[in-house]
């Protein structure tokens, strides 16, 4: 399969280089004129990750339209091909394979879930196509995409704030003010994103003086959360930590409040979408998490994004839209500086990758750069659900 795909890539590349040979000696920016930069995105538009994928897509499309509408990348237009992976790991790899086999893509975005990234990122790495993760926050995403192998993946980047940064910052912020003594962790055990988050909570609580009374594991397909929630609430903890995704954090909050829990909910990236805040409603008020983005930040690159998003879509953007939008800006900036040939696709991919390493631009997330590990280095915004489907800012944390 892989050799077949490689053969197709090579043939296409040869065909394209034959076409491109007719314009020798054109200067680097002129050679972009009239060309198309093909990008592919693997997103979870349906299934458990369907809470996040559509937001990413809207953010990306907004950036693509904005760039194309204002003259493109040195005159080249961006074409974004979005494919749904149904939140399924196998389907995600299959979709990535299909996109790669088209042969003309310079870069990939996604996939939405860390669980799928484990399958997709090594694939992109082996085909030497730069891939930019826009929402995966689990551990071993960058640089060790081939974990347990530890040699760094050269073509894998991410612009989404990792849970390894966000969860400890959030727990510390809460512990510093409220000094909780006990907690129970509720974690979905059949999903990488969730179980990674659980591990991070387990490793962090004791440093903040919190005793973990119990870890309640559940399946993400649990229908009725009454049973696991009863188990947690009966321990009478000060804090319930929730590391899970989709509508599950909201369902747990609703159920826990019904059962009389009055303590604090602390969580991870799974809290950070308006959909979850809306579903939790009043029961989620005060639920706190570390986020890569905050809607009411007033710096220009964010307020402009929020305004444009509201003008085009009904409703407000969320963190995933902001990260999707930022991803396109990052790739466009890299493509602009990469001196692409549009004839030697494999060569262009490597040029794009090299240019990505030195990205330094303003995005809705703030000033954006990659670390030497291709991870994001940025301010963490500690936010709380406001009980009406939105969030309020508690404080901002600059990572040391």
């Amino acid at each position: 399969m892989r050799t077949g795909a490689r053969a197709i890539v090579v043939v296409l590349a040869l065909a394209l280089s034959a076409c491109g040979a007719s314009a020798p000696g054109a200067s680097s920016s002129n050679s972009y004129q009239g060309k198309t930069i093909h990008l592919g995105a693997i997103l979870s538009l349906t299934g458990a990750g369907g809470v996040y994928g559509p937001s990413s897509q809207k953010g990306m499309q907004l950036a693509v339209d904005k760039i194309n509408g204002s003259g493109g990348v040195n005159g080249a237009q961006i074409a974004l091909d979005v494919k749904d992976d149904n939140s399924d790991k196998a389907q995600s790899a299959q979709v990535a394979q299909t996109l790669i086999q088209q042969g003309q893509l310079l870069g990939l975005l996604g996939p939405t879930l860390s669980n799928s990234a484990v399958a997709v990122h090594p694939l992109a790495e082996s085909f030497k196509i730069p891939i930019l993760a826009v929402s995966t926050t689990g551990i071993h995403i960058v640089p060790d995409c081939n974990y347990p192998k530890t040699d760094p993946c050269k073509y894998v980047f991410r612009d989404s704030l990792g849970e390894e940064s966000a969860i400890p910052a959030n727990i510390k912020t809460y512990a510093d003010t409220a000094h909780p003594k006990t907690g129970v962790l509720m974690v979905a055990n059949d999903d990488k994103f969730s179980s990674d988050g659980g591990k991070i909570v387990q490793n962090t609580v004791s440093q903040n003086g919190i005793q973990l009374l119990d870890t309640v594991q559940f399946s993400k397909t649990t229908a009725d959360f009454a049973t696991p929630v009863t188990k947690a609430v009966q321990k009478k903890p000060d804090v319930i930590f929730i590391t899970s995704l989709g509508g599950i954090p909201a369902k747990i909050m609703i159920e826990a409040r019904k059962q009389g829990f009055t303590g604090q909910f602390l969580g991870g990236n799974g809290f950070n979408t308006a959909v979850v805040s809306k579903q939790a409603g009043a029961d989620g008020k005060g639920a706190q998490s570390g986020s890569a983005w905050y809607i009411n930040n007033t710096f220009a690159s964010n307020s402009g994004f929020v305004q444009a998003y509201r003008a085009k879509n009904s409703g407000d953007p969320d963190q995933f839209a902001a990260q999707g939008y930022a991803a396109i800006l990052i790739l466009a900036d890299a493509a602009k500086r990469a001196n692409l040939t549009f004839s030697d696709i494999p060569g262009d991919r490597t040029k794009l990758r090299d240019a990505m390493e030195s990205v330094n631009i303003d995005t809705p997330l703030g000033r954006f750069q990659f670390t030497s590990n291709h991870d994001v280095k940025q301010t963490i915004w500690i936010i709380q659900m406001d009980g009406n489907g939105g969030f309020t800012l508690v404080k901002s944390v600059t990572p040391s």
Partner: protein
Amino acid sequence: MTQQILNAIFIGSIYALFAVGYTLVFGVLDVLNLAHSAVFMLGAVITYSLVALHGMPFLPAAVIAVLVCGLLGLLIEFVALRPLRRRNAPPISALISTIGLALIFVAIVEQANPGSFFSWLWQDGANSVRFPAGAVPNPTFHVLGLTIEGTKLLILITAVVLMLVLGYVIRFTQLGRALRAVAENRRAATLLGIQVDRIFASTLFLSSALGGLAGLLFGLAISDISPYIGRDQVELKGLAVIVLGGMGSIPGAVLGGYLLGLIEVLAFVRFGSNVEAGVAFAALFLVLVIRPQGLFGARLRERL
């Protein structure tokens, strides 16, 4: 522990309500209607749509949703089952065609966003939503340290009452006699002047209305309405329940529902989620080894 047993009874009621409709179709038509889980989902989605998008009070919305689900049952009969039966296709074909319909129903909902063709039905795409606060009163009682919710109590009562009504209908009414006759021997029933096609249609209507009702009660009690609630959370369990209870047996489906709920909850409390499903299905396996026909599975002709 008592709270956990209450939890088991409530989730068991949902399994039972779902499985009753499932097993009814199997009992009469000898076909597994795998679109049942999609109708379950639509019961919740349609009620939500009427309440949240069209401002209707909950009760009339629920009645309309149940009736619409009944009509969807007729659609399943006319589109997915009858044409195949006319051609004497094997039951496996009917099973596949109901899977097809289920996929279509789920796709319609998950693709529905503001501005799309089906935005009058659903606007939240793949997201999970709950009924707007205050749309349905849900008094919560705290008795002896136990939490009992009004909506869950409603599910329990509905499940028990419906089982009794259904039992009465099947045992003592004209329709019930016809149903049993068709289930026992389709050809003989035809010879006796029973319009078999009409019985099939009634069965699908009844079964789907029950499925829709189970779905809307699920959405109400669990605060989770999404395109996937049927497929992810009750479909396989419903199948396990009717196997456990005896394929086609209604009392079996009810008992099986409560039993599965209980086994799952006890397994979760005792062993945790890693073995929850394992224990439940091991129990199912054990029952089938001891009683291959299921708990209430009689010989074929007595199963209703």
